[in-house]
């Protein structure tokens, strides 16, 4: 146990060392770590030095270390206000203009229009590969992120098992299209299954939420994680119902419309699915935006700001949390139906826990609570890795590692996310001044001191 005595001494000693040197050391370590992370091989447990060797015995390491020193020098000068002052003064005017422009409602509406136009036009010019990425990765996950945003961003609840509902929606679709070993009472068109999946997931969300939403935030997180595990275990083990690890026994059919003389069949082609997805997304976003600025949205904000005060003023907090949870769950189910039909083949391995955490990171990264931010963040974090992977800059297995790193960095340096809602920025600023709580996860029983 002598290590206990040593470590505090080490801590004590470092405090008398020049903090600049400490920071230099930190940057160097970061540089080395980034070098390690960007190596394009993977180790084995018998040759555990493989990656480390490859990382450190190459000139690339020098490049990273030099870059680290350069960054350190710049930050030190900035701190010492040598270059900072000049830059800040010169850019102040520009920055002020930018923020007045950016904050105006008109600019938000214009940018929204631009995004919508881009989403409709641009995919037609992309290669098949990128179209596929757009549909399989971006669209699905943006939809999921928008749904999770309701739970995490608006109601402030940490749901770590969000993908469980995604799985439930997907398997519901598989079931009602007759693709599972169990035969359904009637075979339905995926379009018809959409509302059914919404209802099923709504019920599942209520079932999970009713006993657990009164728990503290941390506990809720673990319980939702457990729910995901249980759902996956069920999918894996109940072979005769779900096909077990093999997954669906028959390909899930694509969407099709056969109504009022309109006949359209979706196929393997990506573009039609893209339009289907963003059509759904548009409807969902439209409804959610209305929700946000309604009594329901305001009640969620009140609960996030100060749950005790909200309850004292008549807001039924548990009921609203349940509502958010159920709405999030049904959105996830919706996405599940689209996903199952698009891919045609699903099995339990399509729904790992890492996926839940990834969607969470998209929401946080984009700007918890702000629909626009979440869409942008999710799009970036799903599209970028695909591009990098295609260019062989990043290996697919390493992507979760980068996602984790991004999460930590975001929380340390920009917890409000990329494009936060104005209110969220205010909430976090107030929290750091000790005035309010920025989420629905903890509260003091008696209020705060002035």
């Amino acid at each position, binding site marked *: 146990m002598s290590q206990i005595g040593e470590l505090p001494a080490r801590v004590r000693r470092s405090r008398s060392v020049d903090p600049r040197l400490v920071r230099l050391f930190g940057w160097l370590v970061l540089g080395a770590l980034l070098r390690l992370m960007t190596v394009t091989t993977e180790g084995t447990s018998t040759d555990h030095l493989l990656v480390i060797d490859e990382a450190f015995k190459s000139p690339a390491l020098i490049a990273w270390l030099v870059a680290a020193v350069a960054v350190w020098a710049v930050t030190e000068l900035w701190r010492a206000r040598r270059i900072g002052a000049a830059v800040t003064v010169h850019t102040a005017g520009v920055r002020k203009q930018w923020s007045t422009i950016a904050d105006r409602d008109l600019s938000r509406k214009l940018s929204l229009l631009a995004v919508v136009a881009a989403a409709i036009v641009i995919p037609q010019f992309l290669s098949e590969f990128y179209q596929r990425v757009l549909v399989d990765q971006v669209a699905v996950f943006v939809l999921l992120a928008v749904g999770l945003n309701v739970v995490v961003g608006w109601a402030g609840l940490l749901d770590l098992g969000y993908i469980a509902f995604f799985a439930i929606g997907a398997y519901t679709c598989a079931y009602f299209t007759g693709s599972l070993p169990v035969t359904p009472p009637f075979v339905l068109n995926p379009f018809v299954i959409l509302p059914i999946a919404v209802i099923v997931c709504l019920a599942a969300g209520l079932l999970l939420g009713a006993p657990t939403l009164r728990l503290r935030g941390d506990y809720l997180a673990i319980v939702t994680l457990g729910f995901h595990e249980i759902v996956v275990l069920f999918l894996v083990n109940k072979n005769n119902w779900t096909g077990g690890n093999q997954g669906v026994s028959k390909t899930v059919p694509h969407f099709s419309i056969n109504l009022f003389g309109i006949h359209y069949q979706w196929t393997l082609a990506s573009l039609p699915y893209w339009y289907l997805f963003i059509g759904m997304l548009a409807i969902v976003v439209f409804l959610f935006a209305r929700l946000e600025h309604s*009594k329901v949205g*305001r009640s969620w904000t*009140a609960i996030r700001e100060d749950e005790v005060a909200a309850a*004292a*003023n*008549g807001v*039924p907090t548990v009921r609203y949390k349940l509502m958010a949870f159920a709405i999030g769950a049904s959105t996830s189910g919706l996405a599940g139906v689209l996903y199952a039909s698009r891919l045609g083949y699903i099995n339990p391995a399509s729904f790992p826990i890492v996926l839940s955490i990834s969607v969470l990171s998209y929401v946080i990264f984009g700007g918890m609570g702000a629909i626009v931010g979440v869409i942008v963040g999710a799009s970036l974090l799903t599209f970028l890795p695909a591009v990098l992977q295609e260019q062989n800059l990043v290996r697919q297995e390493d992507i979760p590692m980068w996602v984790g790193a991004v999460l930590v960095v975001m929380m340390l340096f920009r917890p409000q996310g990329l494009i936060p809602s104005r209110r969220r920025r*205010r909430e976090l600023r107030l929290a750091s001044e000790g005035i309010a709580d920025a989420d629905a996860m903890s509260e003091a029983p008696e*209020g705060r001191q002035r």
Partner: protein
Amino acid sequence: MTSRPAADGPVPTPRHAAQAAPLLAVRELILRFGGLTSLDHVDLTVDRGVIQAVIGPNGAGKTSLFNCLTGVYTPQEGTIEFTSDGHTTPLVTGSGRRRRSRKPHAVNHVGVARTFQNIRLFAALSAFDNVKIAAETRYRTGPIGAMLRLPKARANDKSTDERTEELLGFVGLWDAADEQASSLSYGVQRRLEIARALATDPQLLLLDEPAAGTNPTEKRELEQLIRRINSERGVTVLLIEHDMRLVMAVAQRITVLNFGKVIAEGRPEEVQRDPAVVEAYLGSAEEPESGSAPEGTSGGTSGGTEEVHRDE
């Protein structure tokens, strides 16, 4: 200091004594935290239409009483009954393991609203939104109605907007409607919290040390506001306060707590002369007469020492 007569004269007596149950009836309330008894056989009656005050030295259990009334704490024994429209609702039911108190939002819907000792506004929201959120709780607009903007939802929204404007005007905060709550001055924040509580259309308003931390001008305004709440809106007021000048000015009835027990009750003049009360205050080196007791500390530390922060 000379006592001033209660501004509104004697306590209004019910015309039909047999029929008129008090608005709030608390009997034999006992609240314990582990080994500490916070409320000890507390009896309290609040008649409809009065302004009543609960006073007592720091740590006497006053805020704990409010917390029991609003469902934040569940008293181990005793009853709390709220009567309106001839209908009596118990706010605590059951005994032993099955003891349940009505949840805070349900208590609010029954007709009891409160403010907090340490102001709890929705800091990042505007004053208008703070009040509107409370006003909306009286309407049933669900998520479907909100998403589809059904006509009922829109009508509700319009009504709450009107109500919010009216309330902000009532407390004199019309100019500050769009300001962020956290940027308002302390006295204004207090009034906003009161407006928010009123937005829930209560019959009984619990004010927890509304004058703490306010300057004499603000105190005078508060005094008028409390009277207007009672006379113009017909809301019964029960307030906890340390500022005796304010208490004497507005209260028609006073209950005195010390160490969790009721040691005196009655009209202000009676209570002031009561030897037990004098001893309670002088004995703990506090003057019941002082208009400006250490408000800062009472707002600050009493929040910590008065109640043990435990959830039962």
